[in-house]
């Protein structure tokens, strides 16, 4: 039996599916986190006493805003992927949970404030790197950049946190413009 038409159909379905999976997070999420990181990292150099409270508010608030932006993008595009949304939530909540556990070390005095920031940076770097592997590829490069920034912070004095934050923010803005984003339409 000639199965060429069936194979053609399967090839068509495969292409359609590949097209539907090329969806990436909206640029606004990348811009949002670029701004949050830029301010948050600079605070370590210029107002260290405000770093804790800043991240306690900006971290979860950024997460909630990102979820809303992601949901709205799905509405605009006409594609709802609850599984992907849940995967994103679990990933970033897991990272925030790990940070919260490390903060306890700072509160109990087991780790000093200087080292606490560095440990958190390593966790965030790992979080971004793994997000790049499992969720969106550009995040992997941002994670690697954060890891490099951690090494720079260990060995270079001065306003290193500010410089690292600025580099990460620029890379996030650059990542927002890489890859294909889908146009979508809302009229049905």
């Amino acid at each position, binding site marked *: 039996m000639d199965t060429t038409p069936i194979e053609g159909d399967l090839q068509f379905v495969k292409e359609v599916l590949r097209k*539907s999976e090329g969806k990436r997070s909206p640029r606004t999420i990348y811009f949002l986190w670029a701004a949050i990181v830029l301010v948050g990292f600079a605070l370590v150099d210029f107002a260290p006493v405000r770093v804790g409270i800043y991240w306690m508010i900006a971290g979860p608030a950024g997460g909630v805003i990102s979820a809303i932006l992601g949901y709205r993008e799905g509405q605009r595009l006409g594609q709802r992927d609850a599984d992907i949304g849940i995967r994103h939530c679990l990933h970033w909540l897991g990272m925030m949970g790990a940070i919260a556990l490390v903060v306890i070390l700072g509160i109990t005095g087991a780790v000093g404030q200087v080292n606490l920031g560095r440990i958190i940076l390593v966790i965030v770097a790992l979080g971004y790197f793994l997000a790049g592997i499992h969720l969106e590829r550009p995040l992997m490069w941002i994670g690697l950049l954060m890891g490099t920034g951690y090494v720079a912070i260990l060995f270079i004095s001065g306003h290193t946190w500010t410089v690292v934050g600025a580099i990460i923010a620029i890379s996030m803005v650059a990542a927002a413009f890489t890859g294909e984003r889908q146009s979508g339409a809302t009229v049905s």
Partner: protein
Amino acid sequence: MLEHRARLGICVLLARHQELSFSRLKELLGETDGNLGAHLRKLEESGYARVRKQFVQRKPVSWYSLSAEGRKALQSHLHAITDLIRKSKPTR
């Protein structure tokens, strides 16, 4: 029902994604409004797909999802296709 490539494509897309709008399906499949509407109606009538109407920014949006029956039918159809292709290929 799933012998037509457009209907097969719709079901595979709906199996992969939770819900897709009419306009998104149209964009992905490259079908005209009329053709896509007809395919979706057939899938609805056979109980394979479900539709939910909603207003987004004052515009009506039809969201489509795959029913349990549709999922089952898709699985058995894909198994049948795989078997057919495997049997038709010469064994070494």
